[in-house]
């Protein structure tokens, strides 16, 4: 076996080890400098307990130097994550649960004489229906020092959650603006003055900001920080995070299905057609439900054991879907907040650290139901460009064409000039015909809409 491998572009910060890809498989190398901590992590039973509780990704230890590097200690082969998502694609309760998971891990680690040295949401991923911690090398011996990841936790989790809580708005975009965490002074200035009267908020944000600013140029020797103090700190953060919430908001898209189902069995008809098509296509394992709303069709895909990414630009719908998935322990649906007219970009060092949505998304089937008119008419994106976008992510595409005569488009056009002279069934077929062949085409009874099953050329 050759020593050729590719260093994962996001795995460069931690000197304990790194993630690399070799012959299509992802591994994690543990460096010799981290030997003592890693052995302790395994021997103390910390790993076993976290893995058994489903808090940390399981791995297989391979005692083989696959990189050929001198600083090798051991190699781990973690379970594969099917679709990588980032905190700027999560809804409020997803970020909140990720924060609680981080604190739970810190507490569990302490029970084994260890501490969590990183508190970044990028170490958390979606795996079989829930959030899971993926960085196995984030645990080191607790030396009775203050928490090294405290500021990181406050800036990456607490800050965005508090801003959303006090503004009563879902703002996943904040994480994209500050991918390494919102600086404490920014968090403080975005929070209302009354937030000072919340004891735990005062301690972790207001006081934290003040003390940090006053200590900028002084080097302070690490203080003694016994386990009980650390547990108190974690408890305080837990109490604060658990009490944060955003109100359930009625957006233009909530209750969509309820309204849609009243339209002459429209929803049932659509489900029936898609159900039949799904039975016809062989070997469907993964799908992306684009414009998923509250995930009615994602659940149809999931019932066929298809792992589905359910994307919608409305964070309130995605939050609702997340809470349903959590309650039902649904394993096949991963909800993400995503604006399809401006999908998540590639960010970070070399623009490679966090992959763009399109580079990450390669599925067997894409579902675009009641969506195309929002892109073509709502956002003025020509249908050729919409078709080109979809063809990059899947072989099969189930798409719904909504003609201009449809009441919903008439509503969209009521307040603006109709410049979409070309927009009709023929133009739609021409545009998508550049990339796809039509395998099936069926009108949805009781409406003017048409469903297409397209296969990429």
């Amino acid at each position, binding site marked *: 076996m050759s020593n050729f491998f590719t260093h994962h572009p996001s795995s460069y910060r931690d000197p304990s080890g790194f993630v690399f890809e070799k012959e299509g498989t992802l591994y994690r190398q543990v460096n010799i400098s981290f030997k003592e901590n890693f052995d302790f992590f395994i021997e103390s039973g910390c790993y076993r307990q976290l893995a058994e509780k489903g808090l940390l990704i399981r791995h297989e230890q391979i005692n083989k130097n696959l990189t050929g590097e001198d600083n090798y200690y051991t190699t781990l082969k973690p379970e594969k994550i099917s679709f990588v998502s980032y905190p700027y694609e999560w809804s409020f309760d997803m970020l909140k649960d990720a924060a609680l998971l981080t604190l739970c891990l810190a507490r569990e680690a302490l029970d084994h004489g260890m501490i969590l040295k990183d508190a970044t949401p990028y170490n958390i991923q979606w795996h079989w229906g829930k959030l899971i911690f993926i960085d196995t090398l984030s645990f080191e011996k607790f030396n009775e020092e203050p928490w090294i990841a405290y*500021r990181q936790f406050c800036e990456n989790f607490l800050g965005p959650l508090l801003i959303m809580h006090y503004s009563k708005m879902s703002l996943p975009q904040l994480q994209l603006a500050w991918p390494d965490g919102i600086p404490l002074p920014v968090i403080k200035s975005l929070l209302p003055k009354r937030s000072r009267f919340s004891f735990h908020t005062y301690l972790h944000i207001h006081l934290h900001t003040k003390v*940090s600013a*006053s200590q900028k140029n002084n080097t302070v020797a690490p*203080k003694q920080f016994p386990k009980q*103090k650390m547990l108190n700190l974690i408890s305080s953060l837990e109490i604060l995070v658990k009490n944060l919430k955003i109100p359930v908001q009625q957006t233009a898209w909530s209750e969509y299905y309820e309204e849609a189902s009243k339209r002459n069995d429209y929803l049932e008809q659509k489900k029936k057609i898609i159900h039949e098509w799904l039975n016809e296509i062989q070997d469907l394992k993964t799908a992306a439900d684009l414009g998923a709303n509250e995930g009615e069709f994602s659940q149809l895909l999931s019932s066929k054991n298809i792992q589905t990414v359910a994307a919608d630009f409305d964070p309130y719908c995605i939050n609702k879907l997340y809470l349903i998935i959590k309650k039902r322990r649904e394993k096949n649906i991963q909800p993400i907040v995503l604006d399809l007219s401006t999908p998540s970009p590639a960010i970070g060092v070399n623009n490679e650290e966090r992959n763009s949505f399109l580079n990450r998304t390669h599925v067997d089937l894409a579902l675009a139901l009641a969506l195309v008119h929002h892109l073509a008419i709502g956002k003025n994106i020509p249908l050729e460009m919409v078709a080109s976008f979809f063809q990059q992510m899947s072989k099969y595409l189930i798409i719904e064409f909504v003609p201009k005569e449809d009441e919903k488009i008439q509503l969209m056009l009521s307040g603006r000039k109709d410049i979409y002279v070309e927009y009709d069934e023929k133009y739609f077929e021409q545009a998508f015909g550049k990339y796809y062949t039509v395998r099936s085409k069926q009108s949805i009874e009781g409406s003017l809409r048409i469903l297409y099953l397209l296969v990429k050329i």
Partner: protein
Amino acid sequence: MHHFLYIDPGSGSYLVQVIVAGALGVVFFFRNIKNYIKAFFTRPNKKSDDNPPA
């Protein structure tokens, strides 16, 4: 310590934890006494679900 190389904890974030933990020590001490007294006079409740959130 190697971890200083990749996370800058900001010296203030260390100091503030010492102050915060001091304040929390006092608050939790009295909270525990309150809970103890409350538990003494009330029937034991079914323990709430402390399972991890994810």
